[in-house]
């Protein structure tokens, strides 16, 4: 007997409506800047605003720095935990989850207290120092996603045997990491990188409290003072985030294959 598909489709339609309706409404509203006609005027205003370009460029730069620092810190850490200290994995996993539990506002106040002008490392004394502090803050915020992505990649390959095979061929740890491990988890690392990018590009709390000209505070500022541009900005931010997610899906197709496809 064929089971009715009505209920699953109804569930799907309700779920899709829940997500799509606000998006469609926001998009529709963003087109209404001109009276009596739909137009992309709000988008043109946003894109022509020098502050938009400055803040967006700043956030993209910080996101790239965050990704680089994240990769440099997390890939070797996850590799060594998997290879040498497997018993520590639950502890490390718990630590990497902490940024999801501790709100960013607590985190940034902690940073400001620890690295203020009268501290042992007065990072907030200079613009460069504050930028570095913001980058490290973002590394912490994106750690749950980056660590999980890297760990999943490491789980898909035989880390121990590949390491031993490279070692006995004369390779040292940095070479093994760069030439054997990293290329084989590249797709996972890029997934983590795009997730980090999506988080950093719209982040508000840290950038605002550290007084940096990032895209998050710019969006908030526009939202408080303009009518249609915030909706256009929300759609632009959404497109950027979904673009990053789409890239993850696209790159997954290029993951190194490990199984034999021919039979002798």
């Amino acid at each position, binding site marked *: 007997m064929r089971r009715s598909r009505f209920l699953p489709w109804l569930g799907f339609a309700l779920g899709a409506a829940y997500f799509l309706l606000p998006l469609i409404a926001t998009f529709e509203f963003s087109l209404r800047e001109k009276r009596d006609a739909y137009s992309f005027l709000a988008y043109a205003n946003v894109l022509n605003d020098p502050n938009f370009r400055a803040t967006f460029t700043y956030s993209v730069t910080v996101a790239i720095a965050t990704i680089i620092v994240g990769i440099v810190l997390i890939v070797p850490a996850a590799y060594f935990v998997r290879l040498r200290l497997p018993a520590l994995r639950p502890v490390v996993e718990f630590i990497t989850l902490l940024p999801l539990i501790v709100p960013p506002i607590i985190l940034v106040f902690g940073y400001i207290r620890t690295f203020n002008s009268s501290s042992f490392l007065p990072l907030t004394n200079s613009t460069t120092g504050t930028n570095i502090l913001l980058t490290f803050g973002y590394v912490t915020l994106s750690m749950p996603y980056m660590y999980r992505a890297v760990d999943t990649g490491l789980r898909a*390959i*035989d880390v121990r*045997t*590949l390491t*031993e*095979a*490279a*070692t*006995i*061929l*004369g*390779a*040292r740890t940095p*070479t093994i990491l760069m*030439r*054997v491990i990293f*290329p*084989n988890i590249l797709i996972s690392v890029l997934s983590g990188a795009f997730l980090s990018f999506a988080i950093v590009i719209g982040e508000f709390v840290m950038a605002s409290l550290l007084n940096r000209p990032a895209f998050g505070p710019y969006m908030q500022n526009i939202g408080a003072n303009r009518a249609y541009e915030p909706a256009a900005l929300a759609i632009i931010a959404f497109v950027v985030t979904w673009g990053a997610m789409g890239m993850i899906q696209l790159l997954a197709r290029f993951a*190194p*294959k*490990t*199984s*034999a*496809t*021919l*039979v*002798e």
Partner: protein
Amino acid sequence: MRDEFLRLEGLTKTFGASTVVKDVNLSVARGEFVSFLGPSGCGKTTVLRMIAGFETPSAGYIHVDGRNVTNLRPNQRKIGMVFQAYALFPNMTVAGNIGFGLKIAGMGKDEAAARVSEMLKLIGLAGFEKRYPYQLSGGQQQRVALARALAARPSMLLLDEPLSALDAKIRVSLREQIREIQKELGITTIFVTHDQEEALSISDRIMVMNAGRADQVGTPFEIYNRPQTRFVAQFVGTLNVIEAIVADPRERTVKIDSTLINLVHDLGARKAGDPVSLAVRPESVSLGSRQGRESRLSGKISDVSFLGSVIRVRVGVGDSQFSLDTFNNPAVPPPVAGSPAEISFSGKDLLVLQD
């Protein structure tokens, strides 16, 4: 013996409270092919990993070509190794995999390319340079792993159950190819396996391991025909183990089911009336009388298995069971279970087992 290349001296390895390798001593000649044979968990792979440098011995020494390498790192030992799981680098082509060690060693591009071609020719995969591991079958992948291990011209080759992930037909052809390449290069090789047929067919010598100890080291002929312990006798080949009573140690006579049997092998320090375990291979036992097999016992056929060209018959004699093989003769029907039977063998084929 030819000049010594590898020497293991009192090699011991302890993990926590358990000692997995106990006082292993072995001397391997230059160019020799030695197999470590034993069941899972007997410590054979741990010994191999200590030779490679992946495990540090808890006690004992490893000497390679007269040099103490016990505390050297794996990348300082100039040893090639092939792993059970191939361990090819998935992101590199066949040429990239084979040339990896050469690049690390700083070899020039042209020289490395020539060596890669030479290795591919050696393993019979010329033209496969640009393929990726996932485009190769298991046997091809393992051959590439072998070429990669040999490319940098290591002083010794270690093979950790390299055939166990392959199907039976490829196992046989690849083991023959490994042996041919080993002979051609004259490289000292240690081969770890739990497959006795594999070890017997390709080794110069075999070290049979049991519970962390080396039970016996010898040529395949010695291991099969003169096993020194009950474990070796039972692990290598099919064997009938018979419990007997010493009749006269000086005359080397024993009693099996009240029949007096003359042995050739020494009974050691055993006295008259002591129990003794004897072993005899199925091929050394005949159904009925046969010339040259002077000892005879009467029993009853307990089981008959038709295996095609061969018929395996089990004959119960007192408390002992004898397995023996007879060739299938289409003109003669096979023996029937339950019928009385006489078996014969020679006293010189009965081995005295040291427990």
